């Protein structure tokens, strides 16, 4: 199928349409990437900016007599097989959830156990330290 040779008027319309659309395609994302606020911040081509910003990396540990650290497995401590643990234990949402899990570990482990946690939370700006085992979670 072929098209008839375009008239000068049709070519002008095409040229204007092309220029406008090309500008929107190339320059339009400036708004979402640099100028927008609120939910409009996600306009533009920011494919990974919102992914994986809803959880923390957590290491539970207990101090040893020589001033070292003994790692604690939260799944083992709470009696869950790793592959069948609740989702909020597998992926700890925030510092508050990390403290709640730590407190449960204290109750399960019993005695005068001292459970502490290093917590680093994922944000759009990278990892942010939320706790570095400063205090026991067993209270």
């Amino acid at each position, binding site marked *: 199928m072929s*098209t008839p040779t375009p008239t000068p008027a049709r070519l002008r319309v*095409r040229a204007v349409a092309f220029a406008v659309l090309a500008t929107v395609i190339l320059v339009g994302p400036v708004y979402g990437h640099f100028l927008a606020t609120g939910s409009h911040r996600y306009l*533009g081509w920011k494919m990974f900016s919102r992914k994986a910003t809803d959880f923390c990396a*957590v290491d539970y540990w207990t101090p040893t007599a020589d001033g070292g650290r003994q790692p604690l497995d939260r799944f083992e401590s709470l009696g869950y097989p790793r592959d069948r643990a609740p989702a909020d234990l597998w992926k*700890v949402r925030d510092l508050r959830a990390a403290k709640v899990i730590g407190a449960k570990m204290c109750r399960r482990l019993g005695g005068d156990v001292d459970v502490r946690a290093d917590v680093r939370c994922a944000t759009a700006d*990278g990892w942010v330290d939320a706790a570095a085992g400063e205090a026991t979670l067993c209270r």
Partner: protein
Amino acid sequence: MSLTDRLYAVVSEEGSTRPAALLRIGLALVVWSRFAFDFAAFHRDHPWTWSALGASVLVASTLMLVGWRSRLTTLWTGLSIAAIVLYLGVGQRQYALLHHHVSLLMIAVLLLALTPCGGSLSLDRWRAVQRARAAGRPPPPERGPQWGVRLIALQMSAVYLWGAIDKTTVAWLSGDRLQAILMAQYTGSDWPTLPGFAALCTAGAVATVVLEYFLAVALWRARWLPWLIPTVVVFHGVLYFFLPVATFSATMYALLAAFLPADATHRGIDALLGHGPLDAAAPTPQDADA
């Protein structure tokens, strides 16, 4: 050559309609892949508006796929996706319908309506050939304006360019963001035991940004396509296999057709069908860069 002259050269350019036809077929299949399940009739909790929009997008994209009134049914498909994004995504706050892969699909289909996408490999073409035969004329040539295809190529370039700009941050280039993205899928809140995980993430993050900046520009060079296309296929294939990117990879695969030199693609398909030498698909000096 002035900017205006270049602009008129682009909108005056004609070429084979086969790359636009490949885009039409590829994007129609991606539309089905993305929306067929969400809008199927068996979701009893969906109100009638879902069914109406679902029927619209699926009927339109089926007609787009077979190439019946191709530009019109492609426009219908694009407007149906726009209605889904605006009414269900923005209006009803169905955030899954506001993802970038849906926006990209919508924009690509709407731009495709500006191309002669029914000029080849379509019912439209079949009917045109039948009409020509009945009138005792040779089949009309499969040629049409290329400016709409250029806009689709520009859109794919813009996705790479802005994706790279968005990742040009300390958080991404240090590997922090990639670590979090992988951990969220594979290890949850546990630091991976893979030796060198942090270093691998830093290397992967930097390589991704470099590749995206490069692809944004390099895909326009026709003679580099024989090795750039496999690069794009591997890059998006890896993303598709390891991360939840939905139909984004499949859409990017389909959009690659916008960079194919139109006439070389035409000759290549002829050669595949046994109507020309097998090396006919190689771009010649006459095949301009996209």
